[in-house]
């Protein structure tokens, strides 16, 4: 521990070009764990990974050591940076209630990379976060993918427009206008808007382009398959409605939440829809009342791509931590490796960023989490975090 702290302290001073991380166990999320492994980073990328005997650490490299090394964790869906820790109106930008359909709202126009909750996630080894507009209206806006460092959107965000966030079910309805009052009305509004966007897209390709419409333009990119529609749905019948919309418009879709996804395994697999399941410890109430702590395991067992999220709940905690959520998945059915996949490589694949993050492989971003034991154990500490070859946290937490 002391050695690590000294090494990190030295690192900050030296700002070396080459960083090597030694782990008694290195979980790469790309094969079997490596005992006594080494990861060498240069230029922000991983340039070598393997057993210590097979890797030559360049002279002058700064060396970090930890009992356990993992890929930097990927939080597959959050609202941090739009939702702040104060929970006051002035730092809650995750949902705009002026209308039910606002796909033109760009997450980058609201994301605060200096938000304390971002730093909080980072301190547990989360290096990538998919964040943006929350569930709570038919379409609430866009999402982005960021590294958990940097002081500006430009420094932190690497996918400015990741998905369009939609909600199906009671979460999309409300008693006050302009929210639709029923489930069926909410789906009708969604379908009508997708029809309009289809027509807009067709006109874009015709001889007389339409006047520019930011809302339809955003949805047209979904219809063009450039990005998925992220649909939050929990009840089985709401998931079924989402799959109907997917089939009707031939969309790429990612299911978010999915409290009852275990009842829809065949349908989800047939539709090829991955699931970013609710936080494992999310409260079992309202639409999530039938959630199961085994859902990640059941989805994996069924061969459905699945990742975990810190999620969005309106009261405390202002964010959950995917490290803790994966630990609970490991408690309830998942093997260690399968639980780790939920917050590393499988999350990266669902987000479409697996070429850069999610595993420790040569050529990928040098994002790592360092732990003094089994990362899932309550009493283990995160003792270091590396993002793109830079030690960004030496905090012991």
């Amino acid at each position, binding site marked *: 521990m002391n050695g690590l702290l000294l090494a990190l302290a030295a690192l900050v001073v030296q700002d070396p070009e080459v960083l090597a991380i030694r782990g008694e166990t290195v979980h790469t999320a790309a094969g079997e764990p490596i005992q006594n492994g080494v990861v060498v980073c240069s230029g922000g990328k991983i340039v070598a990974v393997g057993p210590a005997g097979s890797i030559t650490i360049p002279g002058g490299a700064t060396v970090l050591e930890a009992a356990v090394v993992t890929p930097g964790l990927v939080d597959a869906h959050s609202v941090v940076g739009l939702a702040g820790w104060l929970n006051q109106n002035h730092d809650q930008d995750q949902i705009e209630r002026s209308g039910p359909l606002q796909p033109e709202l760009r997450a980058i126009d609201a994301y605060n990379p200096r938000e304390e909750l971002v730093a909080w996630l980072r301190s547990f080894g989360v290096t990538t976060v998919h964040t943006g507009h929350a569930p709570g209206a038919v379409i609430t806006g866009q999402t982005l993918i960021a590294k958990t460092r940097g002081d500006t959107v430009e420094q932190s965000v690497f996918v400015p427009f990741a998905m369009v966030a939609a909600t199906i079910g009671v979460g999309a309805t409300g008693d006050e206008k302009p929210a639709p009052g029923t489930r069926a009305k909410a789906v009708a509004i969604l379908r009508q808007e997708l029809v309009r966007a289809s027509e807009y897209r067709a006109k874009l390709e015709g001889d007389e382009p339409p006047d520019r419409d930011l809302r339809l333009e955003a949805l047209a990119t979904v219809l063009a398959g450039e990005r998925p529609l992220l649909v939050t749905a929990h009840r089985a019948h709401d998931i079924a409605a989402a799959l109907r919309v997917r089939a009707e418009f031939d969309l790429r879709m990612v299911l978010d939440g999915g409290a009852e996804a275990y*009842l829809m395994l065949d349908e989800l697999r047939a539709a090829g829809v991955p699931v970013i399941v609710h936080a494992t410890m999310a409260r079992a109430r309202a639409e999530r009342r039938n959630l199961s702590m085994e859902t990640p395991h059941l989805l994996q067992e069924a061969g459905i791509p699945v990742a975990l999220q810190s999620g969005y709940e309106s009261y405390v905690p202002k964010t959950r931590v995917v490290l803790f959520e994966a630990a609970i998945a490991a408690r309830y059915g998942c093997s260690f490796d399968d639980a780790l996949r939920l917050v590393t490589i499988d999350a990266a694949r669902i987000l479409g960023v697996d070429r850069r993050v999610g595993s420790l492989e040569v050529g990928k971003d040098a994002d790592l989490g360092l732990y003094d034991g089994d990362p899932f154990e309550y009493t283990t500490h995160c003792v270091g975090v590396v993002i793109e070859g830079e030690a960004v946290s030496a905090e012991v937490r």
Partner: protein
Amino acid sequence: MIQLFLALSLPLCTPSAPQQDATTAFVGARLIPISGPEIAEGVLLVRGGKIVAIGAAADIEVPAGSTVRDVHGKTILPGLICTHSHIGQPAGADRSAPIQPEVRVLDSIDVRHASLQRAQAGGLTCANVMPGSGHLLSGQTVYLKLRDGETIDDLLIRDSGGGIAGGIKMANGTNSRRDPPFPGTRAKSAALVRSKYVAAQTYRDKIARAAGDAAKLPPRDLALEALVEVLEGKRVVHHHTHRHDDILTVLRLAEEFGFRVVLHHVSDGWKVADEIAAAKAPCSIIVIDSPGGKQEALGVDYKTGGVLERAGVSVSFHTDDSITDSRLFLRSPALAVRAGMSREKALAAVTLEAARQLDLDARIGSLEVGKDADLAVLDGDPLSVYTLVHETWVEGELVFDLADEKDRLIALGGDGAGDLTDIHQCCGGVR
């Protein structure tokens, strides 16, 4: 999980209703008594709802005719005690006034609500069920034994005189600030509390002066009556408080009126640990996944338990269910250990120390002869994420069994879990 499936493949265990003279012997488990050193392979004998013997397997003779439960490989803790919970959908004071001591939360609790069964699934056997924090004083709390009961009376804890065990809930800081008649500032909050306690002192003194003469007694006032119990130390104040200065305000009022207080949440407790220790005020801590949610909770830190422990403060943890999930209550002491608390004090904080804070340590909180047979049977170390609660026993009766299909649904969730309410009758009333 493999163990779980094996367990499910066995015939479901449905012990008959225990008889008063029948002995149940838990044989072979690692016992963590809290009140003494761990026993690697022990025997625990239960009769009439009480612990009648505990010791190393070699030292304890299992009486002939005992029902023997082979618990080799398991770990047994005293049943967990949560010093601050909202299971059973309690609703205390209403919007009519900021201070409502006459309101008893026991008159609102739905004991058939699944949240009570989820608490049993977490190894809890006792909880201080409280009204909320949206008032300066939101009512009388009730300490419940998590027996399988059908009415609130089945769950109450009574003293020898028939009195019902419970405290009173107070709050300061921002939650209790609202439009009039609620206070708008911190100083007004304290002033309202002070004047109410002064009224209670006056009421108490009038009763004393009447010396039993009915003609001289003041008209009976249920609110002041409850506050007199507080002034006399019969009813502990459970005080929601987060910010360092709010914590000190509670200590000031407690000293002024001489009431006994347990400080709850104490987000900033680590900043005023010495002051809390000097006041000998016990603390009931919440452990939450991230700080914030409101300005006064920005200081929430996993280290609070350890800092208070080192200052010499009595520490318990609470779920604040549904703020945190009772099924995962052991996360709280475990995360405190992560941040520096000792393992021994962390385990005591969900058992014996919690019992002390509720004045129930003569009955519960440790595995000792003569105490209630309230047990949590685990399949591993209490502070490991991989450890599951397999059984929960209250007064010698099995109230949660992971091998039981319905109980498993409560523990893990799943199809129909959200519709569970009246589940005691699931097995014909027999468990």
